[in-house]
């Protein structure tokens, strides 16, 4: 598999580390239901077949964290963007 790193260009998957669902949002820690929401965000992950927004880390490249839109059935990557926009 290859991932089009927005900084480095097309690279082999062996340069990247996988984290998981990019849709998980870290809850505000002082919210009343923070415990439940963090529990859900840490443990209750979807594992869809098909398009999935995922977090990948370009460990052996630019060290960028990427949001990768990937088809989990075909491994085709529709897009990859940096999670943090470059500093202005």
């Amino acid at each position, binding site marked *: 598999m290859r991932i089009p790193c927005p900084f480095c*260009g097309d690279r082999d998957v062996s340069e990247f580390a996988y984290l998981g669902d990019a849709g998980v949002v870290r809850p505000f820690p002082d919210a009343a239901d923070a415990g439940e929401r963090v529990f859900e965000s840490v443990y209750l992950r979807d594992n869809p077949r098909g398009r999935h927004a995922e977090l990948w880390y370009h460990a052996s490249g630019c060290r*960028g964290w990427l949001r990768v839109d990937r088809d989990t059935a075909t491994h085709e990557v529709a897009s990859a963007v940096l999670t943090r926009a470059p500093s202005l």
Partner: protein
Amino acid sequence: MPELDTTPRSAFDGLLPLAGPHDGLEVIDRDGCGLATLVVRRDARKALRAALISQYGVELRDGPVVSRGARISLIGTGADSWLAVSAGPNAGLYADLAARLAGCASLSDQSDGYGLLGVRGANAATVLQRLLPIDLHPDAFPVGAAAATLAAHIPLLLWRSGEAEFEVAVFRSYAGSFIHALDGAARPFRRSAAPTARG
């Protein structure tokens, strides 16, 4: 007061030259060049650009490319980061950069962190291509291109300084393993290949 041998030790001491000579390949230890990681601060890119032009005459480019100046070059290593490399030996690069770029970039001295090699010659690209999982064809990796990648499981920074000239920065601790891998990739071009028995 103990004696201290302050002779600088290159990362490649005792490892170079490669067992050669090779056709169309020369590997040079560029030890002594000042190296520093430079990470731009938030909302400071403009200020950094201006400082680099006024202080060093370097126009900072974004992306995996070399921003070349007379005294220093900046190798694009990430969206917000560069490796500054002095043109020649310079032990004071980090201190100089830290003073001149204060407030717009965070700097870390890497002069000892990386070993710096020059890989030169008509076969340089062929030898490096054996090891590297990125396309080194001049159309894909022209003069001025840079990349952070892996070779034989060893992380490295690579940039092309001429048609047949590459610079490779590897973390110091990997120097021996990298030279071993480079030596293997260069073997087909070794002029006095020692016979090895088989069969």
